[in-house]
């Protein structure tokens, strides 16, 4: 199946501020994609570009093979839950379901009412009186019952407490399993995404630092620890993501497709969170000799 989201040298600036630059991505269909990065990294910008709320200042973006928001058909194929899960405060839950039904030709009312019933939301309650979690659920219901091919969620759990977070994500996963959606969701917390995603995009300081299948990422990143060593003396095919040294010991986080053969290393697994943090730290001191190498990363997927 083709890519759900394909971006080429995509960029967006607000005046002189670059919110996203040189973003090249090719996200395959049928994945649950986690978009992670610190606050202000450009996650919302990327997602708003993907749903057509923003138009790029440079480069191109295609979602499900078309320009985002190109027309009603394209809009119908993409569900979106915006940051903060905006809803009409004056309209009741029931009104929101009717809104969804009127504005989406593919609306699945049974799914919507079933979800609302399961969540225990009062149909007559105004959306403005719902808790943050309930509002997020209502917004998700609108997104799911639209029966999109791709569901995009911008920080859907940011305002939720840990328990509500877990429930929301579980619920999302059920919907994904049931309807075979592709999903892109963003968060600044890796732990939120770890449980649900199988594809990861790390966005730091308006640039994509890492993108790929999580299994592959885990298999190609290793923690090496051993006697102190200069990172320049590592083999060419091992790319150092982070390095820390004590007087006698060095610890490296490296990326390589080849097995680690050097017996002097103790090779350890890297957790997803550590991996992401390493990439986030990585950008603050980018290796001067390899600034252009990053875009190649995703080709290795």
């Amino acid at each position, binding site marked *: 199946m083709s890519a759900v989201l394909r971006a080429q040298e995509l960029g967006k600036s607000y005046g002189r501020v670059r919110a996203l630059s040189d973003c090249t991505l090719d996200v395959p269909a049928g994945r649950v994609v986690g978009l992670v990065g610190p606050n202000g990294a450009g996650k919302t910008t990327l997602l708003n570009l993907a749903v057509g709320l923003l138009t790029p200042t440079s480069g191109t973006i295609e979602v499900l093979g078309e320009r985002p928001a190109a027309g*009603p058909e394209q809009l119908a194929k993409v569900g979106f839950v*915006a940051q903060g899960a905006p809803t009409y405060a004056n309209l009741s839950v029931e*009104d929101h379901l*009717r809104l969804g039904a009127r504005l*989406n030709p593919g609306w699945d009312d049974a799914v919507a009412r079933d979800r609302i019933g399961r969540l225990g939301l009062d149909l007559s309650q105004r959306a403005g009186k719902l808790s943050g979690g309930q509002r997020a659920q209502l917004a998700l219901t609108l997104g799911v019952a639209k029966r999109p091919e791709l569901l995009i969620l911008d920080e859907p759990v940011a305002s939720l407490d840990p328990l509500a977070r877990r429930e929301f994500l579980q619920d999302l996963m059920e919907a994904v399993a049931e309807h075979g959606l592709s999903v892109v969701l963003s968060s600044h917390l890796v732990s939120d995404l770890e449980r649900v995603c199988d594809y990861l995009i790390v966005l730091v300081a308006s640039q994509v630092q890492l993108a790929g299948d999580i299994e592959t990422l885990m298999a190609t990143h290793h923690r090496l620890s051993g006697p102190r060593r200069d990172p320049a003396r590592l083999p060419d095919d091992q790319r150092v993501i982070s390095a820390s040294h004590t007087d006698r010991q060095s610890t490296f986080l490296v990326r390589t497709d080849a097995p680690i053969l050097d017996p002097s290393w103790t090779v350890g697994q890297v957790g997803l969170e550590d991996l992401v943090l390493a990439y986030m730290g990585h950008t603050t001191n980018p290796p001067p000799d390899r600034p252009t190498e990053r875009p190649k990363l995703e080709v290795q997927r």
Partner: protein
Amino acid sequence: MIWLTWRQLRTGTVIVGAAVAALAALLALTGPGVAHDYAAAIAACAEPAGACSAVGRFFDRNQMAWLAVTAIVLVVPPLIGAFWGAPLVSRELEAGTHRLAWTQSVTRTRWLAVKLGLTGLTAVAVAGLCSLAVTWWAGPLDHSGDMARIEPLEFASRGVVPVAYAAFALALGATAGLLIRRPLPAMAVTLALFVTAQIAMPILVRPHLLSPTRSTVAMTEASVDTFAFGPDHALRVSASAAPRGAWVLSSHAVDPSGKRVSPITISAASGPCARPGSPGGPADSPPGVTGPDGDPLVTGCLAELQRLGYRIESTYHRASRFWPFQWYEAGIYTLAALGLAGICFWRIRRVPA
């Protein structure tokens, strides 16, 4: 989309609809009485003894109500602009609900078209009903008051222009909201711009839509309303050469060469225009109310002014131009509304989320 727009507009429409219905009912109940009163006053007027003061008294009795209904029609368009137009898009932008609305299976252009179209129709209907009811109800009063129907205050609150004003105000509000993105400043800007347009129109534009009539008449008791000596002994004349019911743009005394003169230099101390009593003091003597023979001072002074060749020159629009002006102005405001709507449609595709 129609459903959503209606759902968002519903509360406001119900309230406004109730208010319009109440106004219409009130006017429908009192209208025949007013018309009957007027007919009675006209009948009284035909009697030689009654003069025309009966019509004047009829107007005075109903003046407050007349002012009130006129004011209602005048404030409806700016209120529509501020309370329906300005928040139309800006409230969504402020609350972030545009992100919900624009990511359903409806393009933003369609979203705006339905919102603007449906709200516009409602606004036009409200303004139209108000104007229709008030134009009908106030008809007899409009004919009996001092103010001509073509003069700015009445012109703007009768006929078809209130409908065009409402459409313009709504489009202005929507545009302001779309550009400013916040409802309150957008409301303020809408009101300010609308009021500016309403003031500028009768001063700068409307008089020139058709070329005004210019006429010159002799200074007689019929054409002179008041004349007064100022403290500087200068004679100021207020007069009009325009027929009744005209919209007078300017009116002033001219000397024999046709040059505008104000004040007229004439001796107040001696001659026909001299005041009896304290010479040199301010005099104020309105002619026409001093009886059929006229105040000898006024008559004499006017005769002297006539002899010196002073005349009254006026530029004005005749009462019969009421409807041509109404259609011209309705056309201008409708075009402006369409232009603003065009800006909205151009802008909605570029507005950053």
